[in-house]
């Protein structure tokens, strides 16, 4: 096999596991969508709408950023949506019962993290493929949430709490700040910490990573817990933004989050991708939906358009991917 040492073009950056060209195409795509929309709809380029897009992208991004870490290890977490629903309902109850938003937030994060940890345990200790383990978890979470909520809605939260999702600071919505903060933290974690590097190594070759002295199982537990906690965070934003929660809020969140990760250039085979890419992916997805709303396009076209975008994004990846052995 190695008879012919093919000299191949060198990747642009080595320690960022995604090369600049791919990121460039992705940003270009986002820019082109913006350009087309601004021509078609005059209200698109208004500051209000741009903030609007960012705020809507933030919810997808929170879920998708945690999911990115899971996908980097060549895993998948199908339970994130159901996790958001359960965490939101629990957090909402705690706020109602105790009147303390802080306790509520902590409950949401802890619930999300616990579910993530359980996913991690199934994947590591019980050695169930992540795809199936989290699918099972999805049903279990739905069951618990349905039973717990019994068809009710939790609504009406203190004004202070509601600021998180709908408030403004210096003219920008607070979720946008949170988005930027978590984008920075996530990128820093993935690129500039040894744990992040180990996660990339695990995704690229779990056996080699283990035999290089990386505690693979502990890192996987961490990754699934972080993914769950990010779902918990999303549940808080959701709760605060909509001022209410019910059992079915998670259903429509999982597939867009996965799509955002994929559009962002993270490979399902693990080891390749960035949090920033996922941010751009969330942005592209939100831009398209925003555009369809602004142009009053029939919502029936939405799944079709999303599907086409996923294909184009991944196809672009194939064209610009770093050469393989």
């Amino acid at each position, binding site marked *: 096999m190695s008879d012919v040492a093919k000299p191949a073009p060198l990747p642009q950056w080595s320690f960022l596991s995604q090369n600049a060209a791919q990121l460039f195409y992705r940003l270009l795509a986002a820019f082109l969508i913006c350009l087309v929309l601004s021509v078609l*709809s005059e*209200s*698109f380029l*208004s500051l*209000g*709408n741009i903030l*609007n897009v960012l*705020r*809507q992208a933030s*919810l997808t991004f929170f879920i998708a950023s945690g999911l990115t870490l899971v996908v980097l290890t060549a895993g998948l977490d199908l339970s994130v949506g159901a996790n958001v629903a359960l965490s939101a309902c629990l957090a909402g*109850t*705690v706020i109602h*019962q105790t009147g303390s938003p802080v306790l509520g937030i902590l409950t949401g994060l802890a619930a999300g993290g616990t579910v993530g940890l359980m996913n991690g345990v199934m994947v590591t200790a019980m050695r169930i493929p992540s795809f199936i383990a989290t699918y099972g978890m999805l*049903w279990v979470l*739905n*069951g*618990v949430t*349905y*039973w*717990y*909520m*019994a*068809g*009710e*809605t939790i*609504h*009406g939260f203190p004004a202070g709490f509601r600021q998180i*999702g*709908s408030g403004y600071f210096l003219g920008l*919505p607070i979720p946008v700040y949170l988005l930027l903060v978590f984008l920075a933290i996530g990128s820093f974690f993935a690129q500039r910490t040894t744990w992040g590097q180990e996660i990339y190594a695990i995704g690229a070759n779990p056996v080699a990573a283990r035999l290089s002295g990386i505690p693979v199982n502990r890192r996987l537990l961490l990754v699934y817990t972080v993914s769950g906690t990010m779902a918990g965070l999303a549940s808080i934003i*959701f709760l605060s*933004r*909509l*001022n*209410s929660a*019910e*059992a*079915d*809020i998670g*259903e*429509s969140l999982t597939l867009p989050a996965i799509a955002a990760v994929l559009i962002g250039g993270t490979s399902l085979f693990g080891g390749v991708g960035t949090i920033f890419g996922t941010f751009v992916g969330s942005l592209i997805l939100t831009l398209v*939906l*925003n555009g369809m*709303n*602004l142009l*009053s396009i029939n*919502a*029936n076209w939405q799944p079709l358009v999303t599907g086409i975008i996923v294909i184009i994004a991944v196809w672009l990846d194939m064209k610009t991917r770093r050469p393989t052995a």
Partner: protein
Amino acid sequence: MDHRKSCYLALSLLIASATTQARADGETIAVFTKNQTNPFFQTVRVGADNMAKALNAKILHYIPTKPDSIPEQLSQIEDVVVKKPSAIVFTPVDYKAMVPGVEKINDAKIPVVNITDRSAGGKFVSFIGADDYSLGLETGRFLLKTLGGKGNVVIIEGVKGSLTNVDRVRGFNDALKENPGAKLLASQPGNYQRLQALQVMENLMQSNAQIDGVLAANDAMAVGAIEALDGANRKALVIGINGTKEAIDAIKSGKLLASGDYNGFAQGCLGTMMAIRSLRGQPVIAEIVLKPTVITKDNYQPFDVSLEQRTCPSFEDASKLGAK
């Protein structure tokens, strides 16, 4: 609600609750609803439970594990027919696609009462439902009257193709036609979902500088739209439909202008009542279409009680409620 409180204390009651079915000596009534997530169907189920308790019958609930799943509800019908309950109170997840299921029930000679969505086929002892068209029309009229017959209005639709949505939106549009001074800016679907409605509203506010009224096809979407308006520091009058607890609270606090009462509680009560009456050989009313009530700040008090405390209407009340 107390269900949830107990859970707040101990989550592990899950299995225990499985075994605490109410026992009764009377008839067994199987109640089919669309999903476990929409608060409306919870009001239906509580209504059915209340009525069964009063009449000493036993209720079994059948709800698809995937919300609104047609194949699952069909499977549940097939399973229930084997079990042979005394009667069935039935909400089809889809009014057309469930017809073969209803026919299966008919073939098994189990009396069945249709509630909420009128099935497109099959034989029923009785139909209990609300008039979606009138609800849309009346709530729409109320909004436009409050606006003085003019202004910019948007509609947030439910799930395309669902029976309730088609009729409610038709009602909204007819109300708009009666008020030529009002202008319809957009009619976009929010799929009966809070988050989608919120995002649709946010986006619509970008392309429309002035929105005076919002007609939402259910309460969850209406509340979502209100959150969007609040977030943008804009004001508009919003109406919803269903009369859920959340909507009542919003009306009380002045955020929501009005909600059309879909009265799931009464539907559950009356559906169960008709089923049991037919089993007991008592006269039944073949069709009750509940008259639309627009719940506003002026008349919300009777609706502001917890479900468990509400009482089912009597048979005599029922005949007045909208018998044709």
